[in-house]
């Protein structure tokens, strides 16, 4: 009855609102923030400020793309902030230890980068195996590993700060501060990760399987989806993206301490939710996550540039936005 379907399609479509608030909401919020920013400070759209905001967004952004997959498949990872700090610490220790043998040059940095990815892989694998094999709630597992990673970095730094060898630091600096065609590396990496994430989410079986598992694990299981394997993969991917974000982060300050990456997990989760991904899983949108990250960072940026509201209230404003985003999701569901 193909014709019955198509004929009934016409009138129904016409009655639907022309814009879907759920889709366009985050974009409207982003546009509004940009307008507010321009009105409050003429330097807002300057090259320097835009680059600054985007580069700062990159760390959380790269992690949030991975978080989108985890949340879409019905999971959660609270450990990413501590994991980033822990990986940063290990990476610095590895590089410092290798300076005497390899010299303070690119070989050391490349080994350090590889180490960051391997540690990220292992951390994600650990989380994922506990969740899928030992069948412990993701919330509990990652709450636990959050504490473990945070404690380990504090211990490694002996309560203080781990500093990267100064010569290595000079060589490594361009990875954060440099770039090509005036676009800094963190922004490029973020862009590549985001585009790849969007394609994987929307156009591959993996993305489809994540959404299927998040909407109903049983249905996925009965449709020959390897539920455990896919969920494990989401945590491993997230772990490696945390490693990647750390690679971009370490050259910025050249150090790691127990204060590194604090509350990153909340910002990453918030960005995912603001972007329209459903917290309970089943629907994910990588481009939305990117918009969510930008919204959160723009708020901070605007507060820093203007003196209308104290920058100390940044957290409060972000909190309001997160709650609002979820309220909007709820309303869409109720309709």
């Amino acid at each position, binding site marked *: 009855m193909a014709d019955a379907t198509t004929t*009934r399609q016409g009138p*129904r479509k016409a009655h639907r609102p022309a814009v879907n608030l759920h889709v366009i909401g985050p974009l409207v919020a982003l546009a509004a923030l940009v307008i507010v920013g321009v009105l409050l400070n003429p330097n807002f759209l300057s090259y320097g400020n835009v680059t600054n905001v985007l580069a700062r967004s990159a760390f959380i952004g790269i992690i949030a793309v991975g978080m989108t997959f985890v949340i879409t498949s019905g999971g959660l990872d609270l450990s990413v902030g501590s994991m980033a700090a822990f990986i940063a610490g290990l990476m610095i220790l590895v590089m410092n230890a290798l300076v005497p043998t390899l010299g303070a040059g690119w070989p050391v940095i490349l080994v350090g980068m590889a180490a960051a990815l391997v540690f990220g892989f292992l951390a994600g694998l650990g989380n994922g195996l506990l969740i899928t094999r030992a069948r412990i709630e993701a919330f509990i597992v990652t709450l636990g590993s959050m504490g473990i990673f945070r404690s380990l970095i504090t211990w490694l730094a002996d309560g203080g700060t781990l500093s990267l060898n100064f010569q290595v630091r000079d060589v490594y600096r361009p990875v954060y501060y440099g770039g090509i065609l005036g676009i800094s590396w963190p922004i490029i990496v973020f862009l590549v990760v985001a585009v790849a994430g969007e394609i994987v989410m929307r*156009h591959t*079986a993996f993305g*489809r399987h994540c959404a299927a598992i998040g909407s109903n694990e*049983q249905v*996925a299981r009965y449709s020959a989806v390897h539920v455990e394997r896919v969920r494990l993969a989401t945590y491993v991917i997230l772990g490696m993206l945390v490693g990647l974000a750390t690679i971009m982060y370490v050259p910025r300050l050249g150090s790691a301490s127990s204060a590194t990456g604090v509350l990153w997990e909340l910002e990453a989760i918030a960005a995912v939710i603001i972007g329209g991904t459903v917290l309970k899983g089943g629907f994910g949108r990588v481009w939305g996550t990117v918009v969510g990250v930008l919204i959160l960072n723009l708020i901070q940026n605007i507060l820093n540039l203007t003196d209308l509201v104290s920058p100390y209230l940044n957290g409060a404003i972000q909190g309001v936005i997160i709650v609002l985003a979820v309220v909007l999701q709820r309303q869409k569901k109720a309709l």
Partner: protein
Amino acid sequence: MAAPAASAASNPVAAPVLALAGVGRAFGPVEVLFDIDFDLKAGEVHALIGENGAGKSTLMKIMAGYLAPTRGEVLLDGAPVTFASSEEAEERGIVLIHQEFNLARQLSVEQNIFLGRELKRGPFLDHRAMRERALALLAELETPVDPAAIVADISVPEKQMVEIAKALSRRARVIIMDEPTAVLTRKEAEVLFRQIERLRAAGTAILYTSHKLDEVARLADRVTVLRDGRHVVTAPRGALSEDAMAEAMVGRELSHLFPPKVEPAPGPPVLAVESFSVEGFAEDVSFTLARGEVLGFAGLVGSGRTELMEGLVGLRPARGRVTLAGRPVRIRSLEEARRAGIAYLTEDRKERGLLLGQPMRPNLTLLALARFGCFLIDRKAEERALDKAIAEFDIRAPTRDIPVGNLSGGNQQKLLLAKTMLAEPDIVIIDEPTRGIDIGTKQQIYGFVQRLAAAGKSIILVSSEMAEIIGLATRVCVMRAGRLAGVVSGADINEDTIVRLAMGLEARRVEGNG
């Protein structure tokens, strides 16, 4: 089309407790109910029947305060009322018992019965009084379930009884039952029928819906038929035969519910299963399946049929020998089963079959996604597959992108069938294909099954509906308590033989090779 209701003909004394006058309901631009007059009287069972999508659910929801009518009025004791919510309707003594139960799964039976209306002594819960009251209610309902048991752990019929106990504890004047027997065995249904009769005698007004017309004929004092959102007829007991009801529902004659059976061509079996066991559910089961055959699996609910099939396709750990087209195989996962050409169509389309929140396209291709591109999914090919499925299985949806949870049960089942067939299996295991769907769609699904068999696919049909097994299968395996009680074929495929085997009244030699 709206014929006047044969109002009050059956019982001129009683005034309606709850009535609808000229009620219509639209969802956005789509009208689903037109100008309905309907009433329920104290001490009567009023059956409401119609195909899926005829508007029964909407009508029930309007009566129970879940939905407001867009036109017309709801009358309680003759006075117009507007229920702000289902809670308010419950407050006034109108309770809807959902097909998918409204119970808090992690709470105990007793806590559920008194949920929101806990008995208290001062500010504290009166546990003893609630326990005693719960026990008394459950005893009345002949349900030997422990009030302290957690609802998630009790069986489906027990949950149903808990729902009814909950309604009774609220002193319901009107009970609206949405297909209560869809999930019950015959024996369990009998208990329910006794309760319904008891409630009727006590003066409760009962709205009863079911797809099982024999139940309707037996229970109902009046029957109302809906079709396409319109009132077709309301008739007193005995005025409509079961055939007449079916015809009024469908609007056409249903002379051939089942297509003619086709005996499979002789040849080696495509599937041979020997001493197959699924721990705790099925023990030492052996059977064969021929090309183009429809092999029925009958038995009581809980006899291990579903678990056996799930073991066969790798969803449960199992042991035993499985031979596919002469080659021994080991199937450890659904993916391996799919590659071996076996597909399993689950009995639970809502919880295991379909992603209710997603549209048709991702649902259709989920099982066979590997066929739509190796890395990137080919959306155009998916759309073409959906076009084909919609045409081939006559799936009727208002738009292509509505969540499949909004489709009627029949259309969901057709979509599930299309999804399964997209994996191009040679052997299809279909578990309860017509549970909770209307008679017109049933007929279509029987036609599909027969066509698949005629096209050379082999089909295992698991069903608790005796008529279905008898009407479709050329051989029937009867299971009892996890074991194969017997295999019947030819003239032996009749209700008497199958029931006797299923109940363990008759032992029959199990065929070795069919």
